[in-house]
């Protein structure tokens, strides 16, 4: 279980402190899938960085029960361009000094699973955006994480590739029984992949609403009436925030 209690975070910018997260509290049950959504620039990424341990809160606490293994996918500059696909995928294991044969077995299996066969010796710069994100997914999965953190993993992809990768993530969530936290600015993505949807206000981010979305994480849901209703509802909730920002 992930438990965030009154976490606040600020950055120093030109000598001035700017609040990014303001008194955030929520819980995510183990093996649940949570989507975090909010207006752009609201601090979604900062919140994910906090959860993934990249940043520390100025005040408040973050507790993750049982010290689980975590995998993280960052929005940009996540893959290392000087490492091949196979080296990138195996990096988490290499850093743990796990023996080469075992790394190769894990990597080969993930290359197969992520439909990257034949690209193991390519460099990320030689792959399409969708393939790069599959490499990033594979690398996060290589350490057999119990929690998977994803920061807008699909934001730079075209619509079709995006949908395909959403299905892939759906598959991962269903098969691996892991806790997932997905930051996204796409309402449809949040509704499709988040059983719990946390809506953030504009910056400094506060929790606007936590929406339960129990039917999510199933491939039929995407085409159901219920899904569209949920999207409309989320859109209404977010609209106030975005309009407020523009005013």
């Amino acid at each position, binding site marked *: 279980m992930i438990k965030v209690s009154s976490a606040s975070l600020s950055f120093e910018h030109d000598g001035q402190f700017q609040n990014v997260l303001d008194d955030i509290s929520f819980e995510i049950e183990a093996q649940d899938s949570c989507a975090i959504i909010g207006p752009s620039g609201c601090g979604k990424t900062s919140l994910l960085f906090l959860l993934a341990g*990249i940043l520390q809160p100025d005040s408040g606490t973050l507790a993750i029960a049982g010290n689980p293994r975590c*995998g*993280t996918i*960052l929005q*940009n500059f*996540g893959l290392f361009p*000087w*490492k091949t696909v196979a080296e990138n995928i195996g990096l988490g294991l290499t*850093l743990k000094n796990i023996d080469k044969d075992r790394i190769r077995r894990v990597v080969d299996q993930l290359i197969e699973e992520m439909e990257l066969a034949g690209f193991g010796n390519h*460099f990320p710069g030689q792959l399409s955006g969708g393939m790069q994100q599959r490499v990033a997914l594979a690398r996060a999965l290589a350490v057999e994480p119990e929690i998977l953190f994803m920061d807008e993993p699909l934001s730079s992809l075209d619509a079709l590739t995006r949908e395909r990768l959403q299905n892939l993530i759906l598959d991962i969530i269903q098969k691996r029984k892991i806790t997932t936290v997905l930051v996204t600015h796409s309402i449809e993505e949040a509704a499709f992949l988040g059983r719990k949807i946390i809506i953030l206000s504009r910056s400094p981010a506060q929790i606007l609403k936590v929406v339960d979305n129990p039917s999510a994480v199933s491939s039929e849901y995407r085409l159901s009436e219920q899904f569209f209703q949920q999207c409309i509802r989320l859109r209404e909730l977010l609209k106030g925030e975005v309009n407020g920002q523009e005013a």
Partner: protein
Amino acid sequence: MGRKRDIFWAALILLALWQVCALLLDSMALPQPWLVMVDLATKLTNGSLIDDLAVSSLRALAGIGLALAAAVPLGLLVGTEEQIGKRVSPFIYLLYPIPHVVLLPLIIILFGIGNFSKIFLIALIVFFQILVTTRDGARAIHRNYFHSMKTLGATKLQIYRHLVLPATLPKILTAMRISVGTSVAILFFVESFATTTGLGYIIMDSWGRADYVSLYTGISSMALLGFMLYMLLDRIEQHVCRWMSGR
């Protein structure tokens, strides 16, 4: 290979320009290129120039090697660790612009008039070029790469090995390319005293004897030496920066 052909043509054009200038100037101080080429070929084949070429190559390579060994680790450290960078950078800015050649008397007192003084002076001058470029290269690495490393559980040493060094390597090679030009130029200076070997000595000696053909043979040999070092660097770059090709 197209590149070899390009180099051949460039050499031919330079020789043609030289020929035109020599004919126009009609001076002893600029002999015709074919005389020099014949002299160069003779001295290379009968072996009388090989020793000098080898000695000069070794001095240049040892100087660059020494500079690399000191400048790269320091540059990576200063560029990566913000606090160290803040404290060390002022020293670099104060020491870099000094014409280090003037330290020669001091270097001779410290290390004598043998080979090491010559190598040390080359290393000292080239050191700053490599240091500044390496530091800037390390400083330009996007923060997200560090975040990515952190989420994969990398130790400090692993971050240097898997991220900072490979990301900076192209910059280091650029610095080395600049260093080759600089080191050959300094080579002439350091070989103009207290030695009877090396291409610099050949040039000074021929100059003193007003043997202009030998003088230009020495100059051509220096060009050849620089060219060989550039080729060596290109090979190294092709090998270690495979990920850069096709970008």
